[in-house]
């Protein structure tokens, strides 16, 4: 017996996935199933059901700082567990604390060398792909990456920062409400989850792979203006960096140096086309699942050496 026509005949496919295509994996549940007691750097901590190791880590004064940069853990957003700056040592090896269930009797230590090295290296790796221009950034002073870097005593990121004018993505200034500067995106996925799982708007998605991974739009539009965004602003609220900023606040926190602002910091800006806009939700993701399905192999993208 075979069922080529209906390959999922035997399963209840969740209806939401038919119209919303965020481009991200369906992760398993990574929270504890019961109240657990564990030790963190020698302190005993009891955390309720539904906790991760990070919840326990945050309860105590730890020996070393654990940035946990991409963690959000509110409104059912996350853990995306992509930045890996929350690594801690346990009796089961080093684990990402944000997405490891709290487990009875687990012994967690933050100052073990391997975990400490991993947090430092991974934070520097995040910075290596970041257009670090805090002085012209609208999130200066209220940015999770800035806070984590300061707290982690980053002085000279070991891989430098992303500073290649030719490779910058243009700032998307096309929407009346939200500005996108992907050169500052850490791919934490919070905006995608806020947009899809909380607002159920189905506008934003994760797209591409490797160095081309970026946030994009489910209707295939190139700009925020062409997307189906309803300007609810939720994505901006959750964004930890200067990647998504409310219009009008792009320069709110910058130093008043004449001629030097967020919009010209990158050099390329996509402006609004100022055309009359149709209804704000012309199309959801109806065609996207089929038309943009990932195909193809591994292109050799860069010459060696």
């Amino acid at each position, binding site marked *: *017996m075979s069922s080529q026509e209906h390959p*999922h005949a035997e399963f209840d496919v969740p209806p939401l996935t038919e119209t919303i295509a965020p481009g991200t994996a369906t992760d398993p549940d990574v929270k504890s199933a019961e109240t657990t007691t564990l030790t963190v750097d020698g302190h005993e901590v009891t955390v309720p059901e539904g906790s991760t190791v990070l919840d326990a880590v945050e309860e105590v004064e730890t020996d070393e700082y654990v940035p946990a940069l991409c963690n959000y853990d509110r409104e059912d957003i996350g853990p995306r567990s992509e930045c890996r700056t929350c690594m801690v040592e346990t009796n089961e090896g080093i684990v990402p604390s944000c997405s490891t269930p709290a487990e009875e009797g687990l012994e967690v230590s933050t100052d073990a060398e391997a975990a400490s090295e991993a947090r430092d290296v991974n934070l520097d790796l995040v910075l290596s792909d970041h257009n670090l221009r805090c002085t012209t950034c609208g999130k200066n002073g209220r940015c999770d990456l800035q806070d984590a870097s300061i707290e982690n005593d980053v002085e000279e990121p070991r891989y430098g920062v992303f500073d290649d004018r030719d490779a910058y993505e243009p700032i998307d200034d096309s929407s009346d409400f939200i500005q996108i500067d992907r050169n500052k995106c850490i791919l934490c996925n919070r905006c995608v989850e806020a947009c899809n799982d909380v607002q159920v708007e189905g506008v934003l998605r994760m797209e591409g792979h*490797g160095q081309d991974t970026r946030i994009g739009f489910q209707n295939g539009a190139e700009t925020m203006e062409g997307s189906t965004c309803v300007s609810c602003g939720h994505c901006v609220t959750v964004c930890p960096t200067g990647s998504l900023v409310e219009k009008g606040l792009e320069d709110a926190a910058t130093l008043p140096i004449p001629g030097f602002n967020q919009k010209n910091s990158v050099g390329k800006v996509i402006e609004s086309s100022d055309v009359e806009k149709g209804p704000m939700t012309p199309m959801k993701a109806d065609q996207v699942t089929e038309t943009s399905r990932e195909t193809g192999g591994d292109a050799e993208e860069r010459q060696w050496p």
Partner: protein
Amino acid sequence: MVRVAGRGAEEVAAAARERTDVPVVDVGSTGVPGVEPLVVATDDGRSAFYANATPDDAESVASVIGEPTRALPDADATVTHDETGALPVPDLDGFSGSRSVLARCGWLRPASADDYAESVGFTDAAADEVVDAAGGVLGRGWGDWNADEPAGALWEGVRDRDGSPAVVVNAHGNPGDALLAESDPFAVLEGAAHVARVVDAVQVFVYVSETDERARDTLEAAAAAYPDFPTDVAVVEGPSAYRAAEPTMAIEAVEGNHRLEARLRPPGPEVEGVFGEPTVVHTARTFAHVAGAVRGDDTSTRVLSVTGDTQDVTVELGETDTVRSAVEASGATDYTGVLVGGRFGGLTRKLDVAPTPIALDERDLGTDGVLEVLGSDACPVAFVGRRSQFAADSNCGRCVPCREGSTQLSELLRDIYDGEFNEAKITELLRVMESTSICAFGRNAPRPVRTGLREFRDHFEAHANGECPSGQCLVDADAEAETEAEAATL
């Protein structure tokens, strides 16, 4: 009986059919494409092999077979054998040792349930018998969620969990899996049927790469012809990219996601797999070994595919053999080194290592069953550099240590060409990529560089001094300088 094996067999077989009433059948590849199309004329317990046969060769064989008074043309190899339902291994380049799980490749019509039934027969073993006989089979390859671990415990875990379990046959990417899919799909499906009964699965998904059309078509035909398969079977395709074989990306593809990235773990697919249901993911090789174990075959053998600067072959070795036999079977005699164990295997010059997970792991080599030969003029520094760049270009993009780590690793390796060889910085990055990446892609990606540094340190140092001992990089650099000079004169 005349068999014609391998790609291009149809045309050759058609020519033979013109000339004889003796049955002429197309069979799958033998795993040795270098001798194919291969005509095998079997008569009275003797098989004569004709390598790289043309339609003319096939005609001359066909015109005499079955005629007791006329002798067959001189063959490239001849084997006297019992009728075993398995390919009698000829003394031809590319064949090595005896075959257990590959035994029927190149001997049976792949989509013929009758051929399979006659050769080994379909076994309706009860679930307990399957666990007893095959529970010790180790998962084969990086596409297997249970790689190098005994399968039985995984099945029992899935069986004991509430839900509607699924079984995924991961036949994506690995040449050994593709060979089994194309040449002996019933063995793969039989293994899946056994496991489906053990875990009481509601559906089996067979997952292939979109570019392996032959594997897909053969598996589809075999699934349709399979007598009383215990569940629904669906053959599904994923993109051909290497990462798409990762077990959780395979599940994402099975579910129909338009973009593939790895899922978090733990828990793994055995807890939350296809649509959140407990799921077994094994490779085609693992399932074929399971089917073999249930019928009492030796399952300690390993399927190894050799590729790179040599003739591609897929062979089967016993655990007392060494990977050298496989490399020799491919015809490679002179090489800089061999990347053992898959795209992100370990680079070595010493091939006296058994193909078992324990022996391979001791040498920091991989277990994915692919041996990639670097020819004698290949530069190991450039090789691992390109492999690092491949990791940077083709990862799924989810986690920082893999996505950004592989990019920075490639830059650090490029710096060596400019005289800056910062080994401490490189090994620090390798450690963190290995220990903190989400999936096996990023966890294994450092291995070619790590082993390359150990095995070819002198080459790395030479490059930092502006020399390439193999000459390859300097040739590239000279060519570049020339192009630049030319551009300047224009």
